[in-house]
């Protein structure tokens, strides 16, 4: 007999696994609710600020601020945002795949330097021959704003010095509780990514139609342009990093909730199958015993 007791033991073990996954799902759901509220609140400010920076980057084209410098195909800095904890489905693997794809397709042949956020990313990227500049773990343990500044400030410094020519970030954007998508976003230099100013020569004459802002008057700056730019640009990059960390956190909880929901359901199926097997085995045992008793009685 396949051991009634063995089957029983397996059922109990799967049941306790199911209990764990169900608890994790519930925890993820409640964390998701909080993270979702945070990202919904963080977005408008970050969005408006990016708009503003894009605006001034377009209007003040004579500005020479180190953070507006256009790169010439030198080293690329990439910030990879992953989670500290596992058991969240393809969350971290997706980011890593997105990174690898970006390196192979978008930045072919360029030198790449990587900053890793999140313990899982550190683990996953350890074995790859990548140039890792710095790693950050446990960023959600303290104030996220400070962590964001901590992560990005050195990278900005490198960019200012001309060490890197572009900075990108690969992370999971939060779409909904069940959907996250990996995004490769440019952080530096600040210019609209589908830059309409690429067509520089003779641009004034031939496209009045899509010159979107009705009056392209440069702003009056107070106290002065340099001060405003310096503060605004530094602030903006920190805010964007801050937002990205929140996006990633919300996505992580969403991904974990989905993964744990699937795991709980799978465990349920396994339990059903094992229970059926158990009942059959028990019935077989009873039948066999009956036959033995009956044939024993007949022999008398």
């Amino acid at each position, binding site marked *: 007999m396949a051991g009634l007791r063995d089957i029983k033991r397996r059922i109990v073990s799967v049941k306790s696994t199911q209990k764990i996954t169900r608890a994790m799902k519930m925890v993820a759901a409640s964390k998701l609710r909080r993270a979702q509220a945070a990202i919904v609140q963080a977005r408008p*400010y*970050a969005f408006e600020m990016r708009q*503003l920076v894009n605006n001034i980057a377009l209007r003040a084209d004579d500005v020479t601020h180190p953070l507006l410098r256009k790169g010439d195909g030198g080293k690329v800095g990439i910030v990879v945002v992953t989670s500290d904890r596992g058991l969240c489905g393809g969350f971290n693997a997706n980011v890593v795949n997105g990174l690898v794809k970006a390196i192979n397709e978008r930045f072919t042949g360029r030198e790449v330097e990587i900053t890793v956020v999140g313990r899982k990313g550190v683990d996953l990227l350890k074995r790859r021959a990548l140039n890792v500049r710095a790693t950050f773990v446990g960023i959600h343990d303290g104030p996220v704003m400070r962590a964001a500044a901590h992560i990005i400030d050195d990278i900005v410094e490198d960019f200012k010095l001309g060490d890197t020519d572009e900075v990108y970030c690969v992370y999971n954007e939060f779409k909904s509780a069940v959907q996250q998508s990996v995004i490769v976003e440019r952080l530096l230099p600040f210019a609209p990514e589908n830059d309409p100013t690429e067509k520089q020569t003779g641009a004034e004459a031939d496209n009045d139609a899509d010159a979107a802002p009705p009056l392209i008057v440069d*702003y009056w*700056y*107070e106290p002065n342009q340099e*001060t*405003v730019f310096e503060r605004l640009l530094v602030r903006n990059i920190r805010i964007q990093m*801050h937002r990205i960390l929140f996006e990633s956190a919300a996505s992580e909880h969403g991904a974990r909730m989905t993964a744990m929901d699937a795991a709980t359901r799978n465990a349920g199926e396994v339990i059903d199958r094992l229970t059926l097997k158990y009942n059959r085995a028990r019935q077989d045992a009873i039948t066999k015993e009956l036959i033995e008793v009956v044939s024993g009685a007949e022999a008398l």
Partner: protein
Amino acid sequence: MSQTIRVEICAPEKLKTEFEAQEVLCPGEDGIFSVRYGHTPLLTTLVPGVLLIQDKAGEEHFFATSGGFAEIEPEKALILADSYEAGTDVDEERAKQARERAEQRLRKPEPETDVQRAELALYRAAARIKAAGRVGY
């Protein structure tokens, strides 16, 4: 009746607040300034202070902000505050305590006191007290 200017106030971790305003009074780096419909494009940094908005109906709204940026365009004023709080939401007791603490720290600064930080804290607290008391400037 003159035209109104659209005001949007944003801060990290806070939803937008929007108004149609007759006039906005902002605590700019170079002093308090007023904005109405048709203002010239202006980009300025803000210092901790009170943001006073007079809405369409002429009602006054007070906000304490702790600095940030303001982007002014003829039809729209965008306030990107580092943080903001409606005067009606301010806990005056706590703001007064914060002011007290900051003043004390500034009065007899110890070597490890971050004077700049204490000053900023003092300005923020003062702004919150003013906003709560519906004092614009």
